[in-house]
């Protein structure tokens, strides 16, 4: 079970969190014309790398904040965690 550092609460076990997927996806701005391809990429295309990955976790049984977690998907090593509005490196 992973041990995730929540920037708001400190280190907590994985069972307090819900996984939120790829954090590098950017939603197209409201009212902006987007092509089918562009929209499809946003809705369906997710990175699933082996290795370092920036992903979203929701501290659902804690502070209810969405956080960004930089994790190695093959070793589960967590390098850094960020608040939702924090800029990532």
């Amino acid at each position, binding site marked *: *079970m*992973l*041990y995730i550092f929540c920037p708001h609460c400190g280190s907590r*076990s994985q069972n307090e969190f*819900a996984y*939120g997927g790829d954090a590098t996806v950017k*939603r*197209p701005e*409201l*009212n902006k014309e*987007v092509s*089918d391809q562009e*929209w499809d990429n*946003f*809705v*369906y295309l997710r990175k699933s790398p082996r290795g370092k990955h920036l992903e*979203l976790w*929701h501290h*659902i049984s804690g502070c*209810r*904040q*969405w956080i960004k977690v930089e994790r190695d998907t093959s*070793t*589960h090593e*967590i390098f850094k965690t960020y608040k*939702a*509005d924090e800029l990532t490196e």
Partner: protein
Amino acid sequence: MSQDFRLDNIGMVNRDKKISFTFNGKKYFGYEGDTIASALIANGVHLVGRSFKYHRPRGFFGVGVDEPYAILQLERNNERDPNIRATEQEIFEGLEVKSVNCWPSVNFDIGAINNFLKMFFPAGFYYKTFMWPPSFWYKIYEPFIRMAAGFGEASIKHDKERYEHKYEYCDLLITGSGPSGLASAYAAAKNGARVILAEDKPRYGGSLLTSDVNIGNQTGVEWSEKIITELKSMSNVIVKNRSQVFGYYDHNMLVMSERISDHLPQTQKYLPKQRLWYIRAKEVLISSGSIERPLVFGNNDTPGVMLSSAAKEYMKVYGVLVGKKPLIFTNNDSGYETAIEFKKNGVNPLILDTRKEPSSDIVTEAKNLGIEIKFSHVVVAAKGYKKVKSADIAKISDNKKDLSNIENIECDCICVSGFWTPSIHLASQSGNKSEFNEKIDAFIPKKSKQKENTIGSANGKFTLEETINEAFDKGYEVSNKITENNNKVSMPTVVEKKSSEHDKFWCVPLPKGKSYKRFLDFQNDVAVTDIELALREGFRSIEHVKRYTTLGMATDQGKTSNLNGLQLVSDIENKVVPQVGHTTFRPPYTPVSIGAIVGREVGKHSKPTRKSPMHEWHEKNNAVFVDAGVWLRPRYYKQGNETLFEASKREAKNVRKNVGVCDVTTLGKIDVKGPDAAEFLNRVYTNAWLKLPVGKARYGVMLREDGIVMDDGTTTRISENHYHMTTTTAQAANVLSHLEYYLQLVWPGLNVNVVSTTEQWAGAAIAGPNSRALLTKLFPNSDVSNEGLPFMGYKEGDLFGIPAKIYRISFSGELAYEVNVESDHGNFMWEKIIEVGKEFQIQPYGTEALSTLRIEMGHVAGSELDGRTIPHDASLEGLVSKKKDFIGKRSLSRSSFTKPDREKIVGVVPLDKTTSIPEGSYIVKDPKAKLPNPKLGHVSASCWSVEYDNPFSLAIIKDGKNMIGQKLFAMSPLKNKTIPVEIVSSHYVDPEGKRVRA
């Protein structure tokens, strides 16, 4: 009581407390502190089971977790517990155990015929023997395999025992209380670290209990007792015995099973049977020790052949002799220690040493004691069926290939020692790739992937001095990283006998003309010939060899067999062991009770149960409940002998005719507050929200980004910047996460806060033509007329002194209101509604009537909004704004979502007006069409229309709009029904919606 094999002056069992138990129905005695194994051996019993495949007689091979043979079934308080290791289970008064895998008895086992049918059970026999003819599989092969499979029989009764889970955090977890575990725990604890020391046996000390050493001028046993006593007295240390750390998971999470009551006649009050510990440790020291490796020779599975370290432990810990004419077969000095122990207890052993001329303190001591030693000698084969009676021994050439001078000598046990295998399981589970150490012919951990270090013999350190030094250093080093106390304790001096090098010999060649079975894996009957066959058949990877031959599988997971198996594969393949590699070690290290894993999460406790504040009233009034997610909701209120069908019909009818009240507390409620709340709702919902006035509610639909409907519900503007959102019961949690996602990640600029208020409000839906009259009486001070509180209006009211919120919204399609009060007043509100409603013929209604009412109105719910439908499919396209953007809007213009024959919701009525249509039925044009019959769609919900008194269903079918009026068929292959139906509008009752506005 006479125990022929019990020694008088040695052992740690409590001779003052006799304990009786039964084995296979026969009564035996032992002492407190005995295991089943030690007590049976003391009584001269060595035949305890039959092997898995050939049903060969089985005795005891080890003395602990590595035991491959002595797997018994325990009966305790009328409960069956299979897969009990006799070497671990302590006896208690009245204990009942029996052998498994034998019929009719362990002494006379019919299955032993397999031993003579060996040619039918080669490696991979599952894939060969049972293949042809295919028709045999179902009736003959499968039942046969099922009968033969497994050890023991699980109880099918509900387990009444209690199991607990515990979460613990520590600086340092140490797994094993042998010399390295004790020393490191002591050094770390003295340095201020919070330490957990886990020992799987009842007694602490590990190898110190049986070795002849001296630490700090004390014997090993005295030293370990002193250290344990001191550790137990320290507030920063938790010491646990009978506790096995069996799994090493991510981020230094380890799981340990503590057997609290397994050694007692029954679980004590306020204590569980077992406790599962989830331990998050900053650092881990693995001091799990090592397991002696067997030597491979003919019939080496005969009862009486056992590990030499086990024989020694039976003597020193339990005061039990495994035999009176022992043969020690060894390739290293460990066998000598056992021989010396025999000699000290008045038994004359014979040592066969594969080495030519070893010299060390221990060898010299054995010689001085007058023990007979034959160098360059091996056991060729054990003789005897149910117990070793003699052994064929021989001289072996220097190149270890040729045998000479074969002779038969009498013996009653053969104690083997093929050197030691470090227990690297936990390290391996942590992600640590192992490396092969040529010096000890075994794998040891390499580079840590997590915060762990392996110490002592688990790390290939086989002298006590090295072990103690390493353990003190590591205990200090890792604890100081955490505490920075710099408090280093001084190391004790260690006195031990020096040993000489072991011989790399491990398998005795077959003499000419003999075909003895030489077993590698004792639990699965995997012999040398099986591995040879697997390799001949092309299995090369060790993982494949394992699965094909079952080498290293089952309950002991090859603790004694893995390395010899690897040796053989590498010999045949002409490789070295590290090239072959080893199979993956996975948790659990030892079998764990399912009960311990499940813990308290059984039955009703497997998930939380949520109840509304009115729950007790429902119970008192004969409500029959249904699970709605984790909520319990009244499904119907039973009167007399009513069925579900009758009751729900009565309740629904009463709503249409008079007035009904339904508990809607379970609906999700979310408070949306902030200056940008309107803008936020406008982006979340498909319809327009900017112009909703204060005191008004609106129905809204929200989508996922892929255009699929996520949820629906009404949201009310309570004040300028405050909205009260409702969601469906099922989606409440998802919707809140969804809102938080957009507020925190996508539009952090919006000044809005959301919070769940589901549990803060109790809700009652009052529906039916009489509802306004009832409301007037409930709220005499409020104007609830059609003008004062119009459809989709909201106002606050005073309910007999309790502040209430009144929403004029309707799910039933009738004139209806929803009254909310703070949860604490829920029951008061409910009782008042029932009391005042009497004169209006009020009846409570449950979810079944609620469904009926909404289905015949064509209102969609979860069965239509099933994660596959877009607004159009549910006839909600009128709520989709063309002007503004919102979540998921762009998806709605995708080509598949705009095609003209897209599925749409319709109503379905059987032509005969009497046959109910099963939910899930397919709608087809031609019921006799060739399969697969092209389906137009499916029936999503069915009810008995109380308005028209005939069955009515909702269905989502292709080109639904143009299907209305058509005669089609509803087919349910599951119920074997084909029903001619007519497609009608989904708005079956009051299609203009006059009633809700009346």
